[in-house]
């Protein structure tokens, strides 16, 4: 029991509304002695996780995000990032049960709403007691930790310069050494917005139900797609200006009285009030418009919160941004444009994994 801190495996789990995020610390400094002592179950879990990049039909390890040669609690190792859909949670628990996870006497730290929702299933199906951790605590802890260790020698945090100019747009590292205060916008299925003033001083400012789940949900209904990747792929080939009504569609150009540029969207899906136009748009156009609508709205709300809280750095995280350069660039541009350069949009490489990282850190703290 004294050596509880070193009891492997080290997991952090974040069970969201759509996705489960799992981080796994793979110790690389295992001594021969340890290797000998390592129980078979533990070894098989380590081997299973590290030698595969996909698990079952839906589990995926984001190899490109792996953090190598990390020192954590005196141990050296690699941090792995794995995700799978929340609806496969029962299968995951089942697998844990089959691999006799409970015999390892480790604690499984979990955060996110699912930590509550699946607590009973873990207990009955997996014979496992979850250690539930606060979602927002974990998120902030994870962000601060990953940013501090960096991304394999590169900066974790970055921003876009010239975000709308395809030729000149550049992703540049941002030094988040003195991070406070910052506005943290976590875009999962829904959106949470936090104002962070120090390591332990933060508040949830607001949230919106128009998030990643809305984009994906609407895309499924409008285009019949079935995966987030498919929805994004469609969006990347569409033209939202066929679907949206722009300021110039109404005023013929800029609306000078209010200083609104002609290219600004006046009404999302506004053109779809007309039957002819409904018949002339493609699924790709609709997917693109959905993406633009949701993204712009998050940008707007984040901007208003930043103004109300008097914070000028806005960090966007969450899995909505995964492989979603369109949204990131748009957020970067919208924040800059509407705040007349006062606000800066920042992004983090490990997008949606910070809650899980926080849960892992929670495990080590609790020891």
């Amino acid at each position, binding site marked *: 029991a004294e050596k509880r801190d070193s009891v492997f495996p080290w997991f952090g789990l974040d069970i969201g509304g759509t996705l489960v995020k799992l981080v796994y610390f793979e110790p690389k400094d295992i001594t021969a002695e340890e290797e000998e002592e390592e129980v078979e179950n533990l070894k098989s879990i380590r081997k299973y996780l590290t030698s595969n990049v996909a698990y079952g039909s839906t589990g995926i390890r984001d190899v490109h995000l792996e953090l190598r040669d990390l020192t954590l609690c005196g141990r050296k190792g690699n941090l792995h990032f794995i995700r799978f859909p929340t609806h496969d949670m029962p299968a995951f628990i089942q697998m844990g049960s089959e691999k006799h996870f409970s015999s390892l006497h480790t604690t499984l730290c979990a955060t996110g709403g699912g930590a509550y929702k699946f607590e009973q299933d873990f207990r009955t199906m997996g014979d496992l007691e979850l250690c539930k951790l606060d979602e927002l605590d974990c998120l902030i802890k994870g962000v601060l930790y990953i940013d501090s260790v960096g991304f394999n020698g590169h900066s974790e945090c970055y921003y876009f310069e010239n975000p709308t100019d395809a030729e000149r747009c550049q992703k540049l590292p941002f030094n988040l050494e003195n991070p406070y205060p910052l506005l943290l916008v976590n875009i999962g299925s829904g959106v949470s917005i936090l104002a962070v003033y120090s390591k332990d001083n933060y508040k949830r400012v607001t949230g919106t139900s128009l998030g990643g789940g809305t984009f994906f949900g609407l895309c499924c*209904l409008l285009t019949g797609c079935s995966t987030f990747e498919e929805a994004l792929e469609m969006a990347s080939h569409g033209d939202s200006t066929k679907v949206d009504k722009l300021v110039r569609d109404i005023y013929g150009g800029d609306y000078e009285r209010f200083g609104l540029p002609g290219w600004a969207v006046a009404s*999302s899906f506004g053109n779809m009030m007309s039957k002819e136009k409904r018949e002339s748009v493609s699924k790709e156009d*609709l997917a693109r418009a959905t993406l633009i609508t949701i993204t712009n709205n998050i940008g707007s709300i984040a901007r208003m919160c930043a103004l109300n809280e008097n914070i000028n750095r806005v960090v966007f995280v969450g899995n909505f941004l995964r492989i979603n350069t369109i949204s990131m660039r748009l957020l970067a541009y919208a924040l800059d444009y509407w705040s007349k350069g006062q606000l800066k949009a920042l992004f983090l490489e490990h997008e949606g994994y910070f809650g899980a990282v926080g849960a892992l850190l929670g495990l080590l703290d609790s020891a």
Partner: protein
Amino acid sequence: MGLLRGCGGGSGSRTPVRGSLTKLAYYSTVQHKVARVRSFDHSGKDIDNEPLYEISVQEEITARLHFIKFENTYIETCLDFIKDHLVNTETKVIKATGGGAYKFKDLIEKKLGLKVDKEDVMTCLIKGCNFVLRNIPHEVFAYQKDSDTEFRFQTNHPNIFPYLLVNIGSGVSIVKVESEDKFEWIGGSSIGGGTFWGLGALLTKTKKFDELLQLASKGQHTNVDMLVKDVYGGAYQTLGLSGNLIASSFGKSTTADKEFSKEDMAKSLLHMISNDIGQLACLHAKLHNLDKIYFGGFFIRGHPVTMRTITYSINFFSKGEVQALFLRHEGYLGAIGAFLKGAEQDNPNQYSWGENYAGSSGLMSTSPDVSPLQRTRSGTFDMLEMDRLERPLVNLPLLKDPSTYIPDTVDLTDDAMARKYWLTCFEEALDGVAKRAAASQPDSVDAQERAEKFRQKYWNKLQTLRQQPFAYGTLTVRSLLDTREHCLNEFSFPDPYSKVKQKENGIALKCFQSVIESLDSLDWEERQFALVKGLLAGNVFDWGAKAVSDVLESEPQFGFEEAKSKLQGKGRSLLEGPPHKCALIFADNSGIDIILGVFPFVRELLSRGTEVILACNSGPALNDVTYSESLIVTERIAAMDPVIHSALRDEKLLLVQTGSSSPCLDLSRLDQGLAVLVRERQTDLVVIEGMGRAIHTNYYAVLRCESLKLAVIKNSWLADRLGGKIFSVIFKYEVPCK
């Protein structure tokens, strides 16, 4: 109808889509009949057998603002309508705003031979908004879910600025308005009515906005949205979360293999958009430190469904600190604004305006079975009419707190029992009123016909109010009475009681001297009692009250002494203390009331050294004494009575008009001249007399000086309500706490 000043071609959405509306505002001069009284020259005549004064009906021209709306499909019909009425050719320019202003420019110019001046949409909207906020009582309301009275009307605040206007058209504009001319676009959102409509049409294959709203009102959003409890399971309660909050809109539709019902999707979409707008509006309100948000635009316009969701959202996001407010005439704001732009040389803001209940269709009282074409032609389509009042109306300077003053005692929108009673009461009295109106013009060939039209119109209004008590703002006995007066006027019955009043004034004048003599013979104490008693007794004569008019109709000999004996109440004297500087008296009825009740009281006040301002209605209502009648009556009394004579000469007794033509009294809308006088003479006593002014209205009014409210309750239901008997007395003497 003559001068046409402006035209607001604002459409529901900024683009002229099918089903969009054009709103037209025009200014007309309306010829209508007014009753005039003129004193005869009595020198050398047998005054005993001559009527007191001459009554004539004259044509008068007053200005009226009309606002009408119709579907864009009928633009040509509308233009014909304008052309028909465009008599005065001085007008060369027509003001138009909204997307339709661009679309119909050529058509309008060709058809009317007028130049179209396009006005900025938002400028017009805000001009119109300021105008209605200032001029229409009960313009603003809050929407209450799960309440008998869905619409909670707000008292007009003397200072309307600053406020936030959130216009939800196809997109959303958020404008901060700081003064008449200062406003600023502070933000907006592309997720608005167009998103609901466009996205809704894609998701449900339902094409019409109204149908989408109907779908939404039948749906269950929880089938489509991911709720907090879907993410947390059953554990949300222990975390202090509300499980029913939406975690992710459309979060359950992230699958290709499930079918969702149209209703559920429409509902989810409605929640998503309403919540989003409410959240942004709150964020802006917070940033600018504002707590009043008015919502407008086609997304809101008369749709309880969207008013409900927006109100919910504002309550949720502001934690109750900000109130979502709506406007009765929201749909006309752009047109009103465009009109005001066009009429700037006339400076309409220098006048006061009154909503004409006869010519206005109420909130949501559109009748869908009337085709728009019929509506434009029949005049029964959605419209708002406002009469220009020649002089500005202002607050009584003696009101303790103008911002919380509510004239009316009972809110009939709130009180279903009272509403039923009064609507029935007005229905039952209607035949009698129509009969009296017809009888008042025995020489007119079409009086019967007009009286019947009046009867029908007022009957219809009453039926509308049964269905939609909120149609014209808070429903009150006052609004019912005023509506009846407006309807009588519309059918050229400017003063049905003119002859009755004439006769009664004549009779009462003949008794004046003997009443004064008998009062003067009493000792001080007895006289004070008799004066108050006289005030109350005289007030029994009120043709407006059904119980009294029954007695009066059946027993024409019903006299002053008998009325006095029917009094069961008590009189109390407020004349014991030091004399007041100046008393303001709001008079009620013609005849015995003013001449034998009020004047002896006035005379006593004058004798004590108190100056008296006697305020009478500007225009006729029932048998209430009008300002012009009061002038003649006073002149005749002065001829008999030296006290009144010298007081008039020395300007110790002043006659003024109230600015009103209502049997009730709204102390927040009084003639400016009266207010000036009240201030100048340092008025320290206000006497309000009669049921209409002291019970139906102002019973709870709080003044900064002493006040006396007195009336005889001439309605048994009301007497029951107030815990008394019919013909019992209200005598409310109030001294402000120091």
